Each structure stands twice: as C-alpha cells, then as structure tokens.
C-alpha cells in the first residue's frame, strides 16, 4: 500500500482532519460561509480520492449522491410545506447548508476509506500506548463486521449457485436475511465462550502493558492534527462574530 521507507500519515490524523472539517461545517451558522467552507472541503476530499491507490466503487458514489440530494429536497420541502414561498431565498440557503453538511459527511467518509485500510488502523494500534486488551478489541471491531457480512454474502451466493432464487422483493430479502442471519448469529454467540477461553489460554488478554516498537508521532501528523483543531476554533470564532 505504501512504498518501503515512505512515511504514511497515521489513520488517527486523517480521522482528526475529517472530524475537524465536519465539526466546522456544523458549527458555522451563516449559510453562505458554511456552503463555501463545505464546498472547499468536498473539493479537497475529491482530490484525495483521485490520488487514492484504489478506485471508489460506483455504488458508494451513487449512495452519497442520493443521500445529499435527498437531504436537500427534504429540507426545502419541510420549509415549503410550512408556508414559505418558492422565491424565499432563506429556504434554498437553509437547504443548501444542510446538503453541504451531509456532503462533507458522506464525501469525507469516502475519502477517509479510500486512503485508510483496516490494516493501517491495526498497524497504528500495534504501536500505540493503549492497553493490549483494548487494542485487541479495536482490531476485532475493525475486521469482524466485514467478515460476518462476507460470510452472509457467500452463503447467499452458494444458495443461488445451487439453483435458489436470488432475493429481490422486500419480503424475500427480509425473510431470506432473517432465515440466514439469525442462525449465523446464534452460532457466533455460542462460540463466544470458546473464543474467550482461547484468548485467555494464549494470554492475549494479559493485563501487562506489552509494547512493540513504538513509532513517535511524526511532524506531518502534528501538522494535520493542528489543522483540524484550527478549523474547529476558526468555525467557533466565525459563529460568534456573525
């Protein structure tokens, strides 16, 4: 993913920047300022996405676009049904501000996922100072939902390959999902005890602080985290000055 010898940005720094931009766009009260800042943040995210090593799936783009449009239309509709006129600029500014906020939210997440893999998160955790049990928990949290979803999809595909109909209607999806997922979850819950025993026997739940080689926080990580804080502080100042 990263060339040997390169100094990648830590996932926590990327997340801090995303969080800073998101908080800033929500803190800004003035609609025009929020839209201008949000547009800049979205453009930045798009630049990041174009330079990412892996392309973003089309489905994710479509979902984000539908989400942003939906929020814009619903926000405008809520004002229009309460008696505001179509020519009232406040209606469209409010809808635009809300749409830009969710655009930062959705496109920012896409950018964050495009440049951060589960492996990056695990790598950073391995060199962090948090307790070993907490590190293990976060690693499992990052990996497990995807494993479970893949298992579900593999069973669906296996059934389709054996001649079963692919669930299409809402009723089919619900009944199919419930009939597959509940037994899977039951077996996963029943396996908790055995997995916990294995964890304990291997000493992975050790209370001792075990450090591997600890990376120092690098200069560019400090810079990015500082920029995130600055964004939030500037947004708070702009809110009180407007």
């Amino acid at each position, binding site marked *: 993913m990263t060339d040997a010898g390169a100094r990648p940005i830590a996932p926590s720094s990327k997340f801090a920047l995303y969080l800073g931009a998101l908080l800033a766009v*929500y803190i800004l009260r003035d609609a025009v300022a929020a839209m201008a800042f949000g547009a800049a943040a979205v453009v930045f995210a798009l630049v990041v996405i174009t330079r990412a090593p892996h392309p973003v799936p089309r489905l994710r783009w479509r979902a*984000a676009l539908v*989400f942003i449009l*939906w*929020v814009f239309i*619903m*926000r405008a*509709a*809520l004002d229009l*049904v*309460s008696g505001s006129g179509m020519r009232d600029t406040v209606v469209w500014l*409010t809808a635009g501000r*809300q749409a830009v906020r*969710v655009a930062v*939210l*959705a496109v920012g*997440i896409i950018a*964050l*996922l495009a440049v951060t893999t589960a492996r990056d998160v695990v790598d950073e955790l391995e060199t962090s100072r948090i*307790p*070993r*049990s*907490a590190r*293990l*928990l976060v690693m*499992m*949290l990052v*990996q*497990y*939902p995807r*494993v*479970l*979803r893949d298992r*579900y999809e593999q069973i669906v595909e296996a059934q389709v390959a054996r001649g079963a109909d692919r669930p299409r209607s*809402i009723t089919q*999806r*619900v009944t199919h*999902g419930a009939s597959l*997922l*509940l037994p899977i*979850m*039951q077996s*996963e*819950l*029943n*396996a*908790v*005890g*055995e*997995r*916990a*025993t294995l*964890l*304990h026997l291997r000493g*992975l*739940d050790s*209370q*001792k602080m075990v450090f591997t080689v600890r990376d120092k926080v690098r200069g560019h990580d400090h810079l990015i985290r500082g920029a995130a804080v600055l964004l939030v502080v500037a947004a708070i100042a702009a809110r009180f000055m407007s």
Partner: protein
Amino acid sequence: MGKRAGFERSELPSTPSSYLLPPADLPPRPLAHLLKPAKIVLIPTLVGLNLVMGWIVVATKLPIFLDSIGITIAAILAGPWVAIIVAAATCLLGTVMFSPVLWAFTGTAALIGVLSYLFATRGFYRRWYLAILAGFLIGIAAAAVSAPVAAYVFGGATATGIDAITLAFHSAGKSILEATFLSGFTSEQLDKPLASFLAYVLVHRISRRTLAWFPGADRRIWGDTPA
C-alpha cells in the same frame, strides 16, 4: 420457558471470571479490568450483528433499523457499560458502512443499552411478551432522545424512509421538533419491540458454555428458577 430440558442448575460450570482476575501484584487498570476475554469477544460479535442487520434492513428501504438487537443482548449478558461500548461502536462503524447520519444517534443507542439493562434486571427478558413491552417503552424513550438530534443536527432530513412521515406531520402543522418526535415514535414502535423480541430469542438459545462467562446473565434471562 422457566427451565430448559437437558440442563440442571447443579451442572452449571463455575464462572470463569473467578480465575481471570488480574494478579495481585499488578495495579488495577479500569479499562483492562472491564475488558475481560469474554467481553473482548462479545463486543465485536454484537457490533457485527447490529451492522449486518442494519445493512440488510437499509437495503430493504423499510422505515425500521433493527440495529439495536446487539445492544440489548450486550445489556442482558454483560451489563450497561458493555452495552454502551457496543452502542458507540455500532454508531461509529455504521456511519462508515451504511448510514452517514448514524454517528449523531450515539446517545440514543447508549440510552437503549442502559434501559435494556434496567429492564433485564427487572426480568423483562424472561418472557417474550415482557420483552416486547420493554421494546415499546424503549421505543418511546429513543424517539424522545432522537427527535432533537434529527431536528437540530439534520433539520428533520435524515435520509431515511422516516423523512416522509416527518414531512407529513410537518405539513399537518407540527413544528420540526414535534414532527421528528412523532415520526420517530411511529417507526420506533415497530422497530424496538421487534429488536427486543429478536434479542429475547437469541439470548434464550445461547449455550451454557457462553453464558457461564457472564455472571448474573443467567438470572436476567431465566430468573430464579429452582435447582
């Protein structure tokens, strides 16, 4: 459902946590003490359940979520703190996986965990009809806590099927806050009882070996049945 066939209380294994206490020479560490092996395994399992269930339900476009089953199970098995961790992790990872607005409802999810625990300690998950009743009550609380978030953070538009109901209430003359509460109340009364019932079904089928890792869970699920 008071007593299961094939098991006698006297056959229950002793609680594994008794030999998993940290050695005396180590200083107590609150987080590490909280994260015993069973909890380390249980939390990702339940977050996975919530997320996959939420992901399937989102794909059906129904105005329900079903992403709180794992939170309720966590509360019944391992108590309120684990339920809060499951709630927070579900909301944060769910934001990335399928719903960009989910992060804002972390407080609601945590409240569901705490309320589920309180209901579990009062025996609401020992009978299926009490589990459904607990779901109704949790639904009312969840709608009340979610309404201000939906109204002020998202302006009433959360990009789910519920927005149409919010619009209908708003066009009927209700304020955004009232409309979001009423729409949330409408959908939660379907979602939370169903989630509570599914949680009831799953916890009542958990193996003895898993249950032995969670002190007190047996009483919350089965009550004080005679040995």
